């Protein structure tokens, strides 16, 4: 569904997920290289890196595919 003549709901969701993914993944990479791990169980799995990375990829996919003016958006 398009919210207006230009912007799809999926675009907004994509932007928010990409923003969140970048923040979480970026922080996870910082933890990975700094060695300062949070005090949580299974911190050694570096979930923020791969989970945030997946969100970033998913968010970018939706942001680009449903960007205003593209065929998918309409």
């Amino acid at each position: 569904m398009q919210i207006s003549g230009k912007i799809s709901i999926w675009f907004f969701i994509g932007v928010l997920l990409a923003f969140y993914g970048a923040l979480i993944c970026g922080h996870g990479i910082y933890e990975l290289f700094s060695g300062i791990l949070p005090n949580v169980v299974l911190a050694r799995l570096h979930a923020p890196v791969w989970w945030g990375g997946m969100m970033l990829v998913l968010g970018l996919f939706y942001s680009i595919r449903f960007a205003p003016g593209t065929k998918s958006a309409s």
Partner: protein
Amino acid sequence: MAHSFIGNHIAQSSLAFFLPSSVLAHLSIIDIIIIASYFVMVVWIGIYLKGQSNTSVDFFMAGRQMSAWIAGLSFLSANLGSLELMGWAGSAYQYGILAAHWYWIGAIPAMLFMGLVMMPFYYICKTNSVPGYLKLRFGESSRVLSGVCFAFMTILMSGVNMFAMALVMKVVLGWNISFSILMSSVVVALYVGLGGLRSAIFNEVLQFALIWCGALLVPILGLIEAGGWHNLQAKILMNYHTSEYTHLWAGLGHFNTNAMGVQWTGIVFGLGFVISFGYWTTDFLVVQRAMAAKNLRAAQMAPVIAAAFKMAIPFFVILPGLLGLVVLHNNDGTLMHLVGQNAVSTANPNSYNEVLPLMMERYLGPGLLGLGITALIAGFMSGMAGNVSAFSTVWTYDIYKPLINKGASDTHLVSVGRWATVLGIVVSIGTAYLVMQAAAIMDYVQALFSFFIAPLLGTVLAGMFWKRATKAGGFWGLLAGTVTSVALYAWVRVDPTAIRYVAFSSDARAMAADLYRALWAFSSCAVVTVVVSYCTTAKPLSELAGLVYGASTLPLQEPVPLLKNHWFWAAIVITVFFILNIVFY
């Protein structure tokens, strides 16, 4: 809502949020950025959508432009509030996988029936609400009765959601209760008041994405820590010496062979038929989402899509509760025991309902924790917004227009809808503070829904599938069912031993009483509807066109490829549903 048809159970569970426990989680700056950006996004969307909501169809029905996916995800999310998520995660800790019945047999068949069979009638009669359908089928009195009850209950539920959110934020983050109430009220009033149903639906789809991203990681990491599903089962068996926590049906032979105190007949007929069908096919909060679809095919596909995702929700609601049974430990390494509200003590400071925040706090570090908390906030606000937008529609179309201003113009109705939204929020705030003063009110407010849902199912089914049902039959049946439900509730409340009559067993517990009370209410509604209908004159067949099965010609739909056919996907969903029930038998 995301209010829930589960009535008292969640209400009782919710009371555990009153715990004055210490703060469970501490946010970092990245978490705060994530939460704040969600609020900014939601308000901005509301402001942006204001220009798209100028007519009543735009404001109340989202322009009837939704795709099947948007309507379907919204249909599901309207029921997926945080109160329900946290309540059922706590129930899974308390009762085990039995709680999944409320997601599977308590939802899937009804959602498919709604999409495949009932949606055409709602859609082709072009009504704006479920009370509106009752008006067309049974006349003004039935509409006003259901409209007033629904509006009243909806707005109270919004207040309960508001207060529950404030309490959760206080327990989990240490936020001031009034700050949380004020913040959520302003944000919801802004985006629903400006953008109407379209804005509410948008937030629900956004919430859906956030819940999956924010909550799905917990069971994944939990399963890794527990060593997989089979190891989890083995550890539960070792710790608690019973296998009932991981079996759906095996312990339902009798009321006293499972922790819930229910029997399979209550689950199948009370939950699987009356309560489930009553909620998913007649509660306007969810039906409104499907009615906003752009065409009949999309409207029929929406509940099917919702059902497919509904089946997956136990993975991040029920599973964390089960995982909590084995992975949560105290600082001294002993197994943590979460308890009911009444049993909270220094030795056991946490209640069942805190299992989801505890699991989040266990696995989610900076950033991910903010995402999880944002998902909970989005769920609460979506619950409020869903109730308020449904209230706004029913108030405007089923109370204001027929009773107060019959000649209102379209522009005036939109204006009334916006003001009804603000009024709804104000009443919700009042309800929230009322609940704060007297916790028992939450029990009563949530029980109200169970009073009305079961008889409403009887009335709507009679209206749609029985040509002989009359105006008087519909009204008196609805009233009789509601009175029966209220009377049985009051009876058990005053005399708890009466449960042996209501639920057919003295071993039955509160949950069973809810299920069997619904059966009684539905039955009395059906009997009175039939008797009164046969004593009164039915409408001529020509007046039932578009309203009753057998008297209506459903619009022919263009053939579509198999992958776009709702019957095909419904068959897939029901097959998976049976497989899940067999696997977890």
